[in-house]
């Protein structure tokens, strides 16, 4: 039926193949939902270094990658996690200590940059940010940009509207396209060729995937192609964009996966406590990340009781009545 045979592989293999030191990466999800956490932890276990990461509000996953020392350059709109950590803690300390190069955008800027990448155009335009420091302050200098062919020459550009004031705009902000080397997303259902069905909000996953040279899909369930093809309009990412498909139940844990499980408030709260203290965080990594062989290892450590607690209610898609204080 298509050329996508042989995409199903282990997570270890997928990360080893497509996530290389220094590569440009983005991950799916938003704050505490559908982060590809199993893949994030595997990247940390494989001690990947110097990743250039593109994030809108990719919360927990990005914070852990920073904590694990995997990221050296970060383009980001929001380093926060909702209530668990209004400002992501390892993100905050890495910036305050000058450990990573970073550059700020808004969520729409980043979404549009992925959209431009997926569309195959060099930039896209918006009115967002005119008059703000987001446009003024560049985290990557002109010199660095000129040296690195994988960075656009400019953070942004403002141009006058060539169509007069058509659309009520006198000028627009142009944000440059992003085309990551690899994007990793976690979805509820995929087939072995990589066609994905995302349930609930898709965040920016679709454009992130389509903008990327390689896409690793981790999924709760690998389903038969015929099942997905009964409702093709609900499959947001066709297989032609996907390089690897990995079956990882609880692959978003400890973030949520709509209709499957909720975020784990206990794990996240604990993590935010650990993250605030370098020594505790190091111990946390040794135990929960490096100390386990793989994601099932982490889940065993967490325990069935805790997983049962966050299991999603069929009606609502989350763990109704979950104690989240």
């Amino acid at each position, binding site marked *: 039926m298509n050329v996508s045979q042989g995409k199903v592989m282990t997570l270890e293999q997928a990360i080893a193949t497509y996530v290389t030191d220094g590569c440009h990466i983005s991950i799916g999800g938003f704050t505490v939902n559908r982060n590809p956490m199993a893949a994030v932890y595997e990247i940390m276990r494989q001690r990947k270094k110097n990743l250039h990461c593109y994030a*809108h509000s990719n919360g927990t996953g990005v914070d852990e990658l920073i904590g694990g020392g995997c990221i050296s350059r970060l383009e980001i*709109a929001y380093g926060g996690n909702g209530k668990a950590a209004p400002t992501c803690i390892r993100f905050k300390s890495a910036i305050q200590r000058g450990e990573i190069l970073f550059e*700020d*955008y808004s969520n729409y800027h980043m*979404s549009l940059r992925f959209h431009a990448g997926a569309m195959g155009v060099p930039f896209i335009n918006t009115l967002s*940010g005119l008059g703000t420091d987001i446009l003024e302050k560049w985290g990557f200098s002109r010199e660095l940009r000129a040296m690195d062919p994988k960075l656009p020459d400019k953070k942004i550009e403002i141009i006058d509207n060539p169509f007069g004031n058509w659309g009520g705009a006198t000028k627009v902000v142009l944000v440059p396209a992003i085309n990551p080397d690899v994007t990793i997303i976690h979805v509820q259902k995929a087939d072995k060729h990589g066609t994905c069905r995302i349930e609930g*909000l898709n965040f*920016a996953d679709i454009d992130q995937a389509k903008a990327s040279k390689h896409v690793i899909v981790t999924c709760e369930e690998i389903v038969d192609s015929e099942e997905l093809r009964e409702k093709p309009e609900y499959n947001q990412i066709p297989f032609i964009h996907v390089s690897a498909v990995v079956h990882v139940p609880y692959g978003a844990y400890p973030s949520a996966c709509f209709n499957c499980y909720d975020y784990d408030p206990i794990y996240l709260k604990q993590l935010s406590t650990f993250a605030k203290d370098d020594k505790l965080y190091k111990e946390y990594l040794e135990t929960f990340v490096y100390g386990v062989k793989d994601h099932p290892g982490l889940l065993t450590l967490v325990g069935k009781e805790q997983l049962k607690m966050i299991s999603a209610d069929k009606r609502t898609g989350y763990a109704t009545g979950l104690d989240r204080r």
Partner: protein
Amino acid sequence: MDYTLKEMMTIMAAREIRDGDIVFCGTGISMVAAMAAKQINAPDSIIFFETGAIDSKLEEIPMAVADSRVMFGAASNSGLLEAFATMQNPNTGDRIIGILGSAQVDKYGNLNSTCIGDYFQPKIRFSGSGGACDVASFVSRCLIFMQHEKRKFPVKLDYLTSPGYLDGPGARERAGLKPGGPTAVITNLGVMYFDDVTKEMYLASYYPGVTPQDILDNMEFAVDISRAIEAEPPSDRELKILRERVDPHKLIL
């Protein structure tokens, strides 16, 4: 009925929301205010999240705008691209009221949620814009939640994350932004509006037990207090709905 400051702030914000408004919510108190408005004074307002959920049912309070709780029972679940387009859109954008929080606000309602100190080597780093800069750029009305402390109302922001009236009348238009801008700053002491002509913040109301001078003492810049009145405290009905229906488990309040 007794009430907490958080409850007062929530109700003051809720009262600013009108039927037909599409309310852009963040997490925490802004979400509770939007939910309260819908239950109390603006049943035909629509709650909407930057993650792409429109008119979510919100049977439980979400802890983040990506919480699965915003997905359940919504009219539509899409993504960031669609959500921000709804705000930039000429037909729907004008109906949206944004609710934002911030680390700093200046007299023109510009917001800093990025850092304290130098951008490149900050003393304190915050989360950054998220969708705040986008909302502030696009929509015609914005409510801003703040704690009233001197350092949070500085003469000059350390970083301008989200545009208010920039440097005064006509500045948004000169910069190329849509008209509109912040409507009210709602703090733990009172509510400030913006003057139609000067675009400067002025004190509109102070909470029972607070004096205008208390408020001036907690800001780096001075604001006009001549128009200030004492705010109407939450009614019993407002409080009852807030406590029983909006946040019964006291997750936020």
